[in-house]
């Protein structure tokens, strides 16, 4: 029964995503909806499966209920395996005590026993915060070819953006010689994507050392990577090209959804060779009524559209009644927009109901804020929800 796995993926999914405010009040960031029928975590999970990595530990901590339910036994991603597959790893009580995950590195350290069960040569560390398609198998091949101890996926960002990321300085051959978290004056534009491949022994060694350092924040970016660099381990940067979006803020989440409406979206979700899998609820097909007007929009199963929808991304089972208008907005599953209501430049979370004739948000004007209505909120008929408001259930 026991077989070795060459590479095990550890997916950090405990993030609160506090800058998504109302959208992450009841759920962890990785389970936030994206693109109508996906959740953020579908991307790293599908990438794993498509890259041939079939053992994935998902580290949860903050509001895990929805995430646990969503991942289930991993069936939608073909990760319901007899050996390996997807496993949810919450913090647990051990003989010497119980601890929350104190940082990204600590979360992996606490689950070293899980990793070692599969006796992997390599450990892939991922975060559940980004929308992208990436072949981790290519990155692993690169890691092996370079004979690295640690490979970090990097993206070339603009100099202005660079101070928001962990920035790497690397030689021609990719070898990293300097790493700075969110530098004020960046001397490179290679940003860490939070995707690491470690040789397992090295990872275990540095996590062990990190766990004994009481001053450490137990974080990969802040502690483990700098410690490895200082010890002159071989660290290389793996350049990634393609669509990659951090959806950590309301504005970036809105933007990432709108990116799907481009004539040729940079993120191709219809690519049969690299499918993004997600869990489905058996919704009926979408129906567009006799007076429906839908343009430049993306719709999902179960929708019933009788009004006007423009420049918007709609999740499953959304209903837009006659005379209602939805524009420049992201509507998640089960949202209902009643007759005569207007929704502009907004994000409406799951099961929100906008009453008859109500108005949410307004035209998109430069630098104005997206209006957000949190899950299960019912906006009464005729009510006006002001621009940039952030409604959530009490």
């Amino acid at each position, binding site marked *: 029964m026991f077989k070795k796995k060459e590479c095990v993926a550890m997916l950090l999914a405990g993030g609160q995503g506090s800058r998504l405010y109302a959208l992450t009040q009841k759920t962890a960031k990785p389970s936030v909806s994206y*693109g*109508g*029928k996906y959740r953020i975590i579908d991307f790293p999970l599908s990438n794993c499966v498509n890259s041939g990595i079939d053992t994935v530990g998902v580290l949860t901590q903050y509001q895990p209920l929805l995430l646990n339910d969503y991942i289930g036994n991993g*069936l*939608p991603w073909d990760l319901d395996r007899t050996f390996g597959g997807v496993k949810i790893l919450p913090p647990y009580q051990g003989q010497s005590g119980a601890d929350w995950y104190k940082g990204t590195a600590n979360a992996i350290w606490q689950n070293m026993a899980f990793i070692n069960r599969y006796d992997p040569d390599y450990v892939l560390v991922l975060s559940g915060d980004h929308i992208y398609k990436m072949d981790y198998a290519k990155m692993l091949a690169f890691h092996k070819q370079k004979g690295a101890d640690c490979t970090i996926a990097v993206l070339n960002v603009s100099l202005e953006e660079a101070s928001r990321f962990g920035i790497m300085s690397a030689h021609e051959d990719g070898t990293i010689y300097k790493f700075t978290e969110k530098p004020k004056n960046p001397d490179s534009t290679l940003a860490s994507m939070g995707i690491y491949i470690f040789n397992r022994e090295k990872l275990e060694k540095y996590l062990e050392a990190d766990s004994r350092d009481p001053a450490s924040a137990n974080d990969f970016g802040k502690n483990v990577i700098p410690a490895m660099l200082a010890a002159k381990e071989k660290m290389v940067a793996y350049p990634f090209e393609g669509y990659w979006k951090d959806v950590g803020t309301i504005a970036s989440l809105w933007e990432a959804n709108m990116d*799907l*409406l481009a*004539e040729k979206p940079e993120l191709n*979700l*219809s690519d049969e060779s690299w*499918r*993004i*899998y*997600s869990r*489905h*609820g*058996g*919704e*009926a*097909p*979408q*129906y*567009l*009524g*006799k*007076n*429906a*007007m*839908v*343009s*430049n*929009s*993306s*719709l*999902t*199963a179960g929708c019933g559209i009788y009004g006007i929808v423009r420049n918007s*991304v*709609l999740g499953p089972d959304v209903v837009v009644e006659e005379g209602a208008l939805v524009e420049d907005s992201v509507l998640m599953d089960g949202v209902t927009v009643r007759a005569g209501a207007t929704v502009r430049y907004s994000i409406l979370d799951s099961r929100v109901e906008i009453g008859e004739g109500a108005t949410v948000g307004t035209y998109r004007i430069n630098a104005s804020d997206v209006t957000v209505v949190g899950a299960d909120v019912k906006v009464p008929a005729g009510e006006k929800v002001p621009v940039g408001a952030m409604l959530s259930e009490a």
Partner: protein
Amino acid sequence: MTIAGLIFSNIHDNSIPEMTRRRTIGSIPYGCRYRLIDFALSNMVNSGITNVGIVTHYNYQSLLDHVGNGKDWDLARRSGGIKLLPPYVAAYENTAAGKLYENRLEALMGVGNFINRCGAEYLVLSDCDSILNIDLKKVVEDHVASGAYVTIVTKKLDKGSYRFEQPVSVLKTDENNRITDLADFCPEKGGVTISTNIMVISRADLQAVVADSLARGHKSFHKDILAKNLKKKVIRAYPFDGWYSVISSLDSYYQSSMELLKSDVRTDLFRHAERRIYTKVRNSAPTRYVAGAIVQNSLIADGCVIEGTVENCILFRGVRVGRGSVVKNCILLQDTYVGANVSLNCVITDKNVVIKDDRNLSGHESMPFFIDKNVTV
């Protein structure tokens, strides 16, 4: 009370030869994303029947591909779940049961093993030509409470004219829903009650039927087992009052599909909170309506890209309608590609059809124009 299901995936194959040349009737695509067998399967699962045998005959590759191990219906189980029952031809060549079965009774003889071993007290038998959303548990409860020999789910056809191209079982009942007359023919006028070919019988009785038929050389379940016994045994009707449609020809396939554009029909078929219709998950991307697209009164699957005008249509997964094209009253099956400036009216395209730019094709509501799988126009 334990119930097992038995689905006949081929019995009405000759109803719609255009579409069953390469598939069984059970795997005919229907309603944007389903196959006909999904209704029979989902009805069983939603009624708590999780031990289901699927009787196949020939041409069942696409059915195997669709059903797989039953995951998508939650029927991938260690005990029970889906059992595909291909015919036993090779094993019994030149014996009585050696031929490929020709009727329902012979099919039942071929799956004697499943019937004997399923362990259930009752069996629900279902064909794949009926489209409905029904709580079968209630049917079985009614069957048990009434003490009937066989209970048949029946549907009273609305008044109006019908054009059945294959005989259906037309029946009459007394005031207690006992069937008093049963005959197979093509009713031309509505108002009659027909069998949906969904039946409940106890396993012991079904075993006896199979054994007896083998001994006596009976050929027809309807004529020899049901019609002849109407006086001796209680054969009961369970009138179904929801939306029901039966596929008996390409024409009725078209009419039935178009019914889905009615809101009450969709509610009845798809909107039961507890009884959803499940199908194989394809993981298509959401459907994109490009700026300038006009789509009205249409039922559309995920994974489509629409740039043109679509009215009164049923579009399956992965359909593309190019710029300047006008598609009306059509059923376009999975991955149909419609180029630019095409005009289509009353056309049914099977899977992977390509309609090149500037083509102009039209059928009529009473006679839709059918384009076979993989054809380029």
